[in-house]
């Protein structure tokens, strides 16, 4: 039953690496973009230290629009943008901009939710000793919300891992693409089983790592 695995092993390894690469790079950039967006969403919220109805509403809409697209449609819809950013819209690299665009709003909402968990009294205490908005963000909000942010990032990463399966549409490669082309279209059940097992292991490892790290940074 596992006769296909021998000859296809190099391709399985390559696809695994592509999945890891797409996931990690996308999460990295999605965090770089989504984290500030989440922070701004919190600070500009009603009653918060930089309350601004305009900024909050506009950014909120922007994030919601980003989250409305099914990934497969988003990927095709933003092809011009992808070409502009990375010079191509195909291949593993071509899959990264759409993954970032899909994940960044998710990260923004995740960050927003985590930061809103921080007790307002602690923010007041920081303000009462003369902290500026920026100091409140990086000395209070982010450190206090760290366990939640770690867990949120774990969820984001696992979500992005799921999205990468669709990257095959633009020739992005990865395990999902391998499973469709060989496991499904050429009817090689062994390839299908192996890719699924690898994905399961990846998700388990990511989740355990996230849980462990969140516990480690939690001082409550």
């Amino acid at each position, binding site marked *: 039953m596992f006769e296909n695995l021998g000859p296809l092993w190099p391709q399985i390894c390559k696809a695994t690496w592509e999945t890891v690469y797409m996931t990690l790079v996308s999460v990295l950039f999605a965090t770089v973009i989504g984290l500030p967006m989440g922070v701004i969403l919190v600070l500009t919220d009603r009653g918060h230290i930089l309350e601004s109805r305009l900024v909050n509403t506009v950014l909120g809409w922007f994030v919601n629009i980003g989250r409305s697209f099914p990934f497969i449609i988003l990927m095709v819809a933003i092809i011009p943008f992808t070409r502009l950013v990375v010079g191509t819209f195909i291949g593993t690299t071509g899959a990264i901009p759409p993954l970032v665009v899909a994940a960044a709003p998710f990260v923004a909402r995740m960050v927003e939710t985590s930061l809103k968990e921080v007790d307002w009294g*602690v923010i007041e*205490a920081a*303000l*009462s*000793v*003369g902290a500026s908005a920026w100091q409140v963000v990086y*000395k209070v909000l982010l*450190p206090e919300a760290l366990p939640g942010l770690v867990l949120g990032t774990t969820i984001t990463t696992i979500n992005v891992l799921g999205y990468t399966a669709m990257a095959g549409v633009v020739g992005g490669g990865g395990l999902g693409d391998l499973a469709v082309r060989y496991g499904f279209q050429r009817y090689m059940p062994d390839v299908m089983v192996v890719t699924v097992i690898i994905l399961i292991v990846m998700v388990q490892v990511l989740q355990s790592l996230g849980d462990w790290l969140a516990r480690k*940074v939690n001082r409550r």
Partner: protein
Amino acid sequence: MITIENLTKIYNTPGGKIRAIDNLTLHVEKGQTFGVIGLSGAGKSSLVRCINMLEKPTAGKIFVDGQEITALRGPQLRAARRKIGMIFQHFNLLSSRTAFGNVAFPLEIAGVPKEKIKAKVTQLLEVVGLADKAHAYPAQLSGGQQQRVGIARALANDPKVLLCDEPTSALDPHTTRSILTLLKDINRSLGLTILLITHEMRVITEICDMVAVIEDGRIIEQGPVVEVFMHPRAATTRNFVSTVMNVEVPEAVQRRLATREDGERTQLLRLKFLGEAATRPAISSVVRECGVAINILAGNIDCLQDTPFGVLIVELIGDPPERRRALARLAATGLSIEVIEDV
């Protein structure tokens, strides 16, 4: 040190406008421990938050150490806040930092160099008696210890004023006492002006020099604690005083008095004495000199900081002329006497 002029704070809520503070004026002298007491919703929390502009006043002016806080914005306001320490009911420590890290926080905010921070934090933790807990996280500390960290944090930038927002309301009576003692020590040793808000009269009698009673956003009564305590005028004030000095005729005694046969010969009195008067043997001398008997039914003797203070309910027994003489004699010793008509 703190002057509040015609302060008004109005909250716009979906249910309409709420006037939390209504044209309030208050003055706190340098070095005083000033207590503001009120029921929940009286506006005391808004009041203390306006002083360091955590809440923006709707109208009015606030001066701290001669500086008009209400006129400051941005960096100037942040600089002024460093000189106004604040402690909170729920301590509000950073859970991600150790005791040391929490006390270091205001110094980091002020841009103090690392070496100086270490020395200052070590000294402050010693002041509050937590030198051995420097590396403990708030979750590992008891409520009282957390409040001590809060106090050390509030003192980090050598403030001139310490605002206390219900500092002991989340603590048990024993811990409350130790925290209040610490605050009083700091008040005396550093000459720090303290403005404290609370709903507990005990806190006021324990450490405050001056008290103001707040109701519906207005100060309804204020003065030296001893004065207000002895002669409360407003009903709310009397209620607060009675929470620590609740001396009523016990029910068993009431029943006995209701069925007594020689009712004509007795009178119930509530005697209050304070300071000097408490040190004189007034009752025994009256008994000796006026030919009456005095039966003590209930009582409470306590100290308002260093001033002895007490309330006694007594039964004065004797014929009317002797009783009149005894009353006059008691009044002459400086006791405050109230004849209880109905038992």
